[in-house]
């Protein structure tokens, strides 16, 4: 932050142009926000934090190789330019075993190191792996619809649309599917995204440690209403979450008719809360047995084998 401020001062001093000054301050502000309080660089839970660490470490490892290479590229090209009489011309020099060994070894060693990081990271952060915690995980079932998100809380017996309320500091164990085309469930500040796919279930475990409101999106294109498919994550302190779940019971019930209504395409949908949920709704959606709007119901009466649970 300090260096940017200094840079801003310097520019102010040198350039007596108000517009330039504004631009400089604005750019500085942008960099600061990008680095400090948003997106995947500002994780609020253990998954996102671990992923950010891997991202930064890997970038640093590669920059250590890449920056010297870039400097050497410009330096070699410039020093060995045709007009430079001081440079030695080696018109037939085309092979050196020692150099060959080095140029194969540098990328190979780098990749071995990064490969190790990838191997450990992809096991530790496997989306279906439950998070270590003393608190039992909250179960949430996620359904992507055209074009909104349905969150079912099987243990609380409530459901929400476009609003995911979770207790801070508690792991959340998601089961996800889609009642339409593919989407991808993603809360950048919490970490890992995962596809929601019709007739299939994916699993994901996340946790928000810091109470707050975080943006969630679909990160897989799903048709015309796709940009209006964002939702909000509200991470509440545990006691407030219990109060919220209690008060949610006052809302309308998510029965067959209400669900059928919900499957009709709509976008930029305001958050809603349902006070009761038809039991087994999520599994019915996965099995394609739930009532729905766009497809004639006679086409999917029987549950089909091969559905991943």
């Amino acid at each position, binding site marked *: 932050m300090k260096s940017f401020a200094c840079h801003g001062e310097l520019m102010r001093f040198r350039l007596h142009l108000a517009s330039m000054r504004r631009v400089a301050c604005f750019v500085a502000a942008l960099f600061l926000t990008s680095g400090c309080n*948003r997106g995947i660089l500002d994780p609020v839970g253990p998954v996102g934090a671990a992923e950010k660490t891997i991202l930064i470490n890997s970038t640093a490892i590669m920059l250590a190789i890449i920056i010297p*290479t870039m400097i050497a590229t410009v330096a070699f090209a410039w020093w060995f330019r045709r007009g430079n009489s001081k440079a030695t011309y080696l018109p037939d020099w085309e092979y050196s075993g020692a150099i060959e060994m080095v140029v194969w070894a540098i990328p190979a060693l780098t990749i071995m190191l*990064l490969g190790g990081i990838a191997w450990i990271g*992809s096991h530790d*952060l496997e989306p279906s792996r439950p998070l270590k915690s003393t608190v039992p995980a909250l179960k949430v079932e996620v359904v992507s619809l055209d074009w909104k998100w349905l969150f079912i809380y099987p243990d609380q017996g409530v459901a929400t649309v476009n609003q995911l309320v979770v207790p801070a500091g508690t792991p959340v164990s998601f089961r996800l599917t889609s009642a339409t085309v593919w989407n991808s469930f993603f809360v950048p500040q919490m970490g890992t*995204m995962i596809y929601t*796919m019709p007739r299939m279930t994916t699993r994901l475990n996340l946790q928000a440690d810091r109470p707050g409101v975080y943006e969630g999106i679909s990160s*897989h294109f799903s048709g015309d209403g*796709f940009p209006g498919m964002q939702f909000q994550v509200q991470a509440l302190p545990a006691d407030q979450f219990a109060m919220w779940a209690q008060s949610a019971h006052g809302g309308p019930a998510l029965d067959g008719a209400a669900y059928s209504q919900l499957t009709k395409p709509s976008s930029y949908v305001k958050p809603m809360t349902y006070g009761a949920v038809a039991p087994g709704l999520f599994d019915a959606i996965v099995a394609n047995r739930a009532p729905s709007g766009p*497809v004639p119901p006679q086409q999917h009466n029987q549950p089909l084998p091969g559905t991943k649970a």
Partner: protein
Amino acid sequence: MSFFGRLTWHAIPFDQPIPLITSLVVTLALVGLAIWVWRKGWWPYLWHEYITSTDHKHIGIMYIVLALLMLVRGFADAIMMRAQQSLAIGASQGYLPPEHYNQIFSAHGTIMIFFVAMPFVIGFMNFVVPLQLGVRDVAFPTMNNVSFWLNASGALLVNLSLVLGEFARTGWLAFPPLSETQFSPGVGVDYYLVALQISGVGTVLTAVNFVTTILKTRAPGMSYLRMPVFCWTALASNLIMLAAFPVLTVALAQLMLDRYLGFHFFTNDGGGNSMLYMNLIWVWGHPEVYILVLPAFGIYSEVAATFSGKPLFGYRSMVFATLTICIISYCVWLHHFFTMGAGGDINAVFGIASMIIGIPTGVKIYNWLFTMYGGRVRFTVPVYYLIGFMLTFVVGGLTGVLLAIPPVDFVVHNSLFLVAHFHQVIIGGVVFALMAGYTYWFPKAFGFTLDERLGKAVFWCWFIGFHLAFMPLYVLGFWGATRRMQHINDPTWAPWLNVALVGAVIIGLGIVLTVVQLLYSIKTRDQRRDITGDPWDGRTLEWLTLSPPPHYNFAVLPDVHGEEAYWTRKQTAIKEEKLIDEPNYQPIEMPVNTPTGVIVAFFASLCGFAVIWYIWWLAILGLIGAFAIFVWYAWRDEHEHIIPIEEVRANARERRRIRMEHLHTISQST
């Protein structure tokens, strides 16, 4: 079903001024151009020398012309997307509704990969490979012409969707179930499928042709390890094409069966599974990247050696690296969907396999670096692109390796970070190479060089424009911005999106300057003639013959000694101050021209159009027409025509005279 199937007046988008006016202007321009060419009396020349030509050089030029035209179309889509994303922020919905915007990004990707990058790369392979191998043509000259026209037919259908009906709104890979009839009932996806199937046939034929050419027809003495690196990369690229494009054909055919005949390969119902499509499309899709980038590496290798005045450093290492990439490129497709929920083992294996590609690629970067070491680097336009590429591509490689680490991919997959990454490797890797190759081989094709100053201006536009257009997308990707957004909800993204728009405009300026450069160079061609056929002091066999080369390339197939066939020969001539003894000239047999390709493509387009609109009688007619042409061609009597010995000898002696003069100039100057 009516006589014209689904086709009615409603297919024309009278309510959408942008596509309507664009197509009107383009149609008028094309008609105007046709009339102008007719008034000039150039049609017979075009018909005999290009449209029906079996000359690999002219087919190559046609591919590149197609690619440049489609580049303009694809770029128009790009700038519309950037403008929409700069305008449609917060309360504003911008000027493109979703159904239009979604067509544009789908068309942009489809056109840029299939009808810009592919024909551009194939065009260079056509023009350069036979010349570098020291032979007179590709293995199957007529098939070569057919390949081109089938590719053009696909491009035609994609562009036709602008004025009749709509294009796919499902992204450039048309993932089901979104692309199934249930969710995309219109003609858009059908345009996509049919156009790619037709051009895909052309691409597979190209692969057959070039693998055969490189393996079976080389000049005497041109053993595998004496082939120029560009030929090696072309071989690797065509081997991948041969293995990967049939997979694409199958995936698209399955989707067509779903859409046309009610099958259930990828549907939500009836036991379909859309994950299968995801796998198949990427089994093609990832190798496709290497189909494009390997020949690009070949171009950089030629440019680096020629303009450093030194052989390529580590030739064998380069060949080995190329073949390693060729093979591993087929084993990494799963990294396109780490977020599908596969376990840690699978994700890690494919992630590490993807990273391993970074090793031979890194070696290549170092080998170009050491090619310049100890050289006398001439800062010509192709060298600008080479250095620009090396600086840009290593960063693209870095972001690529990041995406190959599954836990990192979990947070940047499908984001603008990914968009920035693949544009960085495709523009910084492939497009820079194509522009370098365009400048490098232009004099060989047309006998005069392109203007250097304007060429450098074009380079700077691409280089600066690219960075302005895509670096902001990395930042936005970190902020959680995903791709394919017709509307932006977060107003704080605006500044970065505006910078990206400025970048796109600068790239657009570069494209305009490319046209200016071409026109200016044509106008001043008399001052920039390439008399000797070797304007860059080249090292490979294409510089042995005149610019432009005669139809038969070489009067006598060159005898190859050593890795740098032409360089060795040139140095011997300079040292001995004489050319090799005049060989014994023979009459040359060359394949005759044939309209087979253009007629087959005509019927294929007809058939494809009919299939898209359910005009079944026309589809059958198109198929019969295309088949009849094949039969007619198979029964032909005349295969080749003979170039008489007098003509060969006269041309060859003229070349020798020019070379002798050149030799004298060199020996006087040293």
